[in-house]
């Protein structure tokens, strides 16, 4: 016989077991990697980075230190396979399984001429339907960063303002300086690539730091390693992981030490030659140098970049001055990831000997004593697929705050933004599951209260 007391205990037990099960399994079962939709979620949603800044009368130094389990110093390899040379250039979705995607650090810098950047950082450069977004299409490769006011409709990549407007914006300082350190394509030269973001992500003027080694007409490399210099003409594919890890030599081609490709050499299956050739850049493009060496050791990259306070290229580089306050936003690519699979920071104010989020230390001499320079611990986060048109659109509850100019850091933390970024990638699926859970919860409540109510009204005996 089912006694009342037993029934109450069983019903209550079932209810709490259901609650516990729900609690233990909540927010699971939907988020998963889906390469077909360009979705790949990193295991770690945030990462730390340490930043120090110092300057003297003429130069400014930014020192970055960030963890990376192993260095990735290779990118774009040409491989001899099945009797012919093949280009291995690809944008991996998430981490490249063979580790062929270089580590990178980028920093956008502004002097206040792009006021939204101070409040929202790199988000303002992300337009709608950007490359590698879900559903962006095969023709999206050129849809890269731009500033909102360079478009008649900031949500339409193709509504670019006329040339006169863009020129006037540039003269007014409406662009972001972009420092782009690359473990393969700039670090071996002791350089950081120098770019800027305006109507597009543009290279500064001057010779490029690298050029393609692929001769598309002949279907072969243009250059190879000099056997007289290093004893080899090419890397071996099986040595790629070791070359990646050691990062000492023969992982990059330099124009001044490479030799023209020898098609008559007896190439072997698995020979590999870098797909880009490095060379000394000139003019504005070569303004940022690596101070000392950009090195990976003991699980950390330690890179210091140095540039003139005023490079003499005010339409491509921001001019920095003593007592000035500037905004920076950082990004890191690591773990063999490229494109949008990076970690980014919220905007950070750097004051040159002036109160700010981080105070740059003034020093005299040729190099700063880093032990005397303030260190700022920064949290970088995976941003997911969140665009500026979305953030300023009606669907974003915070768009009214953006319209009022409320900074992102007032309402959001890095870990929160990482969560939101992921949920944006699964918006439709999560919303469906959430509705089902909401209804199930209501039914569970009604069912439980009805059941215990029914049992409470009973009298045994």
């Amino acid at each position: 016989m089912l006694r009342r007391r037993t029934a109450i205990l069983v019903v209550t037990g079932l209810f709490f077991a259901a609650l516990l099960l729900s609690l233990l399994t909540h927010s699971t079962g939907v988020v998963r990697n889906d390469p077909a939709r360009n979705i790949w979620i990193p295991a770690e949603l945030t990462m730390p980075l340490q930043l120090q800044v110092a300057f003297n009368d003429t130069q400014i130094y930014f020192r970055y230190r960030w963890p990376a389990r192993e260095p990735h110093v290779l990118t774009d390899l040409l491989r001899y396979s099945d009797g012919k040379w093949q280009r291995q250039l690809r944008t991996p979705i998430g981490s490249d399984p063979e580790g062929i995607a270089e580590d990178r650090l980028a920093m956008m810098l502004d002097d206040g001429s792009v006021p939204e950047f101070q409040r929202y950082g790199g988000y303002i450069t992300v337009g709608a339907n950007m490359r590698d977004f879900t559903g962006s299409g095969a023709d999206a490769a050129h849809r890269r960063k731009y500033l909102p006011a360079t478009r008649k409709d900031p949500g339409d990549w193709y509504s670019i303002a006329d040339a006169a407007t863009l020129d006037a914006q540039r003269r007014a300082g409406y662009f972001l300086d972009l420092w782009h350190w690359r473990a393969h394509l700039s670090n071996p030269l002791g350089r950081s690539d120098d770019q800027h973001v305006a109507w597009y992500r543009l290279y500064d003027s001057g010779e490029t730091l690298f050029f393609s080694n692929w001769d598309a007409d002949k279907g072969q490399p243009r250059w190879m390693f000099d056997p007289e210099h290093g004893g080899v003409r090419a890397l071996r594919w099986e040595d790629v992981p070791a070359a990646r890890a050691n990062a000492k030599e023969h992982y990059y081609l330099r124009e001044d030490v490479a030799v023209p490709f020898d098609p008559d050499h007896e190439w072997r299956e698995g020979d590999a030659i870098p797909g880009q050739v490095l060379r000394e850049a000139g003019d504005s493009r070569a303004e940022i140098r690596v101070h000392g060496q950009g090195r990976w050791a003991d699980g950390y990259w330690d890179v210091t970049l140095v540039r003139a306070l005023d490079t003499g290229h005010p339409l491509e580089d921001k001019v920095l001055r003593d007592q000035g306050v500037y905004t920076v936003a950082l990004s890191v690519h690591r773990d063999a990831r490229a494109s949008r699979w990076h970690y980014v920071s919220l905007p950070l104010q750097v004051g040159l000997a002036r109160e700010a989020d981080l105070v740059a230390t003034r020093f005299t001499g040729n190099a700063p004593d880093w032990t005397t320079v303030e260190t700022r611990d920064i949290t970088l986060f995976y941003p997911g697929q969140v665009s500026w048109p979305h953030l300023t659109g009606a669907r974003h509850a915070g768009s009214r705050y953006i319209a009022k100019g409320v900074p992102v850091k007032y309402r959001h933390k890095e870990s929160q933004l990482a969560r939101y970024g992921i949920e944006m990638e699964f918006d439709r699926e999560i919303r469906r599951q959430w509705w089902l859970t909401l209804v199930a919860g209501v039914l569970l409540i009604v069912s439980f209260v009805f059941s215990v109510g029914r049992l409470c009204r009973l009298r045994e005996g």
Partner: protein
Amino acid sequence: MGPYHAIMVHFPVALWTVAAGIIIFRGVSEGPLARAFDRVLVSLLFIGAATGLIAYVLGQLVWSPDTLQATPLGRNHMMAATWSLFYWAAVLFLRWRTGERAWEGAINRLIMVVLGALGAGLLAITGTLGGHLHGAPAYLSEILRMLGLDVYQTYYVPNGVLAVLAIVIVAMPALAIAAARELAATPPHGEAGK
């Protein structure tokens, strides 16, 4: 509608919090004060449900449905608010239908205490999420995080768990009805010997 929602939620929050206190107090006390409080319980719960419904509707008008349901915090707040409203409405129904029998015996009283405590917890979570949405986060969210609930992550369960919930939803009233029928079929004490 945001400010009006913020004003209106004071009523159900206050009334349901007091109701939870009365339920717990009455559950552990047979004293005259507890009985006196209990006499106004149904009224409190009724006004709480009525004002809660108004606050809920106003809350739905703060943003468009698409905007509210596009953010994890908005989704979680809406879910918690929906559950709170149904929960306290269900408690009102239970107390009204059960009458004084709700306090008869240790088991009934324990159930009522559990219901009161659970309702208070649900109310606290709903209010915390509302505070976050309003831009006034409380430390309670850190306690929730320690319990495995991240307020910035949409609360949903996978399909397998939904199936289990469906079984529980059906099983609980089935058990209650079966127990009632069993009791109805059992002759009262003493009748068997006649």
